[in-house]
């Protein structure tokens, strides 16, 4: 396996989509050292900005030890293998990932797992905005795979989701699951405003509080438990909402009943 250590604290954005097990595979350390990266507007070699070492261990294929907050596009499009980042990760981590595993022992930045298709991303800290969401102007959201975030996630996470699972153990920012059509999003704590706005299908489950709730959902009942994936069912009871009505949507929004006493006055009369 290859261990990369940043040679300094980066001020300028570093574009390093070459940090990808598929790219490293079959290359010698010397060849890896020569891979192109950009630091600001200067083209450089990977070895100009990282110390590169090879260790005999089999997995993970690539380890980054240190702060990679400014290092973008690590694991972009990767199909196989494993990357571990012991530190913070930069934007577009695992964007369009199609397989393999990425672990971040730190926080991840915006667009982590953007439009991902397959594989697993585990963030042990927080994640930034646009987790799993597609590029500007595109509606090609995450299609498959799993993202697990131990901490909080930013705004606009899981936009246009059309498959796969996102599990957030902390709080979620606004516009979680905007316009999703399929797939599952689970938030263990609280969710921000405009939760599930414009959703047409899929499933969003929130175990915590929802302080601002879209008026365009209709309450459909109460459910005790909700299945998140094969191994896990979230414990309720949950209000079950259907929507978003503005899109003639048939998405399902499960919101914890005990965590949201304010809903009782509005919705209990319909139950």
């Amino acid at each position: 396996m290859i261990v990369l250590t940043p040679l300094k604290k980066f001020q300028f954005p570093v574009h390093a989509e070459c940090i990808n097990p598929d790219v490293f595979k079959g290359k010698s350390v010397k060849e890896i050292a020569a891979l192109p990266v950009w630091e600001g507007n200067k083209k450089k070699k990977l070895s100009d900005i990282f110390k590169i070492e090879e260790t005999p261990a089999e997995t993970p294929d690539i380890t980054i030890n240190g702060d990679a907050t400014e290092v973008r596009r690590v694991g972009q499009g990767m199909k196989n293998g494993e990357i571990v980042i012991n530190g913070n990760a930069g934007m577009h981590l695992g964007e369009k990932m199609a397989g393999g595993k990425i672990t971040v022992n730190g926080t991840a930045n915006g667009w982590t797992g953007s439009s991902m298709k397959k594989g697993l991303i585990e963030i042990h800290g927080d994640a930034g905005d646009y987790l799993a969401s597609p590029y500007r102007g595109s509606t090609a959201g995450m299609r498959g795979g799993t993202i697990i975030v131990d901490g909080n996630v930013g705004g606009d996470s899981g936009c246009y989701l059309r498959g796969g699972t996102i599990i957030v153990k902390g709080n979620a920012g606004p516009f979680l699951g905007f316009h999703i059509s399929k797939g599952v999003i689970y938030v263990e704590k609280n969710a921000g405003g405009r939760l599930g706005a414009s959703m047409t299908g899929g499933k969003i489950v929130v175990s915590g509080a929802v302080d601002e709730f879209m008026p365009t959902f209709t309450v459909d009942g109460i459910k005790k438990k909700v299945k998140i994936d094969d191994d896990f069912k979230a414990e309720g009871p949950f209000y079950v909402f259907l929507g978003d009505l503005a899109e003639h949507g048939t998405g399902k929004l499960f919101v914890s009943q005990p965590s949201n006493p304010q809903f009782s006055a509005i919705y209990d009369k319909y139950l």
Partner: protein
Amino acid sequence: MTELLIKNGFVFDPLSEINGEKMDIAIRDGKIVESVSDQKAKKIDATGLTVMPGAVDIHTHIAGGEVNTGRMIRPEDHVKDVVRKTAITRSGTGYSIPSTFVTGYRYSKMGYTTVMNPSMAPLGAKHTHEELNDIPLLDKATFPLLGDWWFVLENLQKGDLAGCAQHIAWMMETTKGYAIKIVNPGGLESWGFGRNVHSIDDVVPNFDITPREIVCGLAKVNKMLNLPHTIHLHTNNLGIPGNYLTTLETMKALESVPNDGKPICHITHVQFSSFAGENWGNMKSAADEISRYINNHNHMTFDMGQIIFTDTTTMTADGPFEFTLYQLSGHKWVNSDVETETSGGIIPMHYKRKSAVNATQWSIGLEIALLVKDPWKIFMTTDHPNAGPFFAYPKIIAWLTSKKARMATLAKCHKKAQKKSLLPSIDRELSLYELAIMTRAGQAKALGLTGKGHLGVGADADVAIYNINPETLDIAKKYKTARKAFDNAAYTIKDGKVVVKDGEVVQNVDGRTIWLDVKTREQLKVDEEMKRKFKEYWTVEYENYPVFDHYVKVPEAITVKADV
């Protein structure tokens, strides 16, 4: 004095009736000449290569408000196709709506030297010209949209053809335009209040005029003005199943306009106007009916509007049609109506082989191009970017010149479309000579551009040289090799300067913008009337409306003497 001698190539110059003859082409100061000094002239050894006039595109949306709005709303389109800066060329983005510089480079790499921007809202004419200035390596012209302009509707409604002609002359000069563009006549004014016209005899609300009267009226006006190109028409009901009947009716209606045996109307992207069937479920090709009509009449020319299977962007002044596409697709939708003049719309579109409708559309374009016997009547276009980006032209060349190529694509299409396609029954494979007609000679002739599309003495020295040896390469069999050759011209020569070599831009030169200075008898009177009515019709001042001279970087005005 710069001289250039292209030696020993196989020359295809249909306007001069040269069909693959091995000969030299001499160039001096940007023009084709009889001969140059063999010692002094720079030489290009074209032995074993195909030499053609620079290619011409009669219909391609490359500049102006609509095009640029398309760019702005589609970052996801650009991000997959980026173009780096080099020592010679600017950076940019490509795919369905390339940035201006990239547009110039990509056309030039394929041997194109002249292109027509067919759709310009007069109010936005300055914008169009500013963008044209930033498209290098090509000569360009642009057509103002005039079919639904209030002055046209009012004058034609009154039956005042001469008055209409004078206003159009005013507009041609004011917008530095080249031809009369008509889109869904009557439909665009109706769209101002969200309505449309559905036949050529529907009455336009508030104006008491029909599409038939608009089209025939403007065809007559075009003749009165002696404009080099005919009226340039996008038909009513475009893109709707069963519309071939409207197209036939339109063509028949135009038979009433005197034509001296010459074309009086160009129907553009005819593929989109040749749908049979009643709905999207049973939509099928009307190529047979349309091409039969074309083969029996001489008053019209056409271009294909060939579908390419890719993700592209539709954009047209046909606002109501784009609205229909919005209803069908739910995709992001731009509508842009322009006061007193026209409308417009944009919808991204992914044409898929596995869609029965798209595959049928793909088939229709090729069917018509191949069923029309006379290549001087129909030209190769994709109505860029509507049916596909222009840089897919070499693919169309392969389909036109090789049955093997088109059958290979058809085999991957939706089964229903395969079954209905006429392509298996068509054996015609275009020769390089016919191809030269469809891609340059015929287009230049239809446009009335006398210095373009040929290599005769006096022509502009716009030349394309391709790495194709017609004696050794059978393009019908080795269509992939030919496609590569058309993708990357061995040389493109613009005004006598080598601008592309081996598919790379080697020199950056500005092309010209060609426009018509139409001289009429009562110019002043029209000026006065326009001044009077201006405030009532528009929200800008009369003084600020025209495209002033400095908006055109390298102008080439063609003076036209009108009969009115």
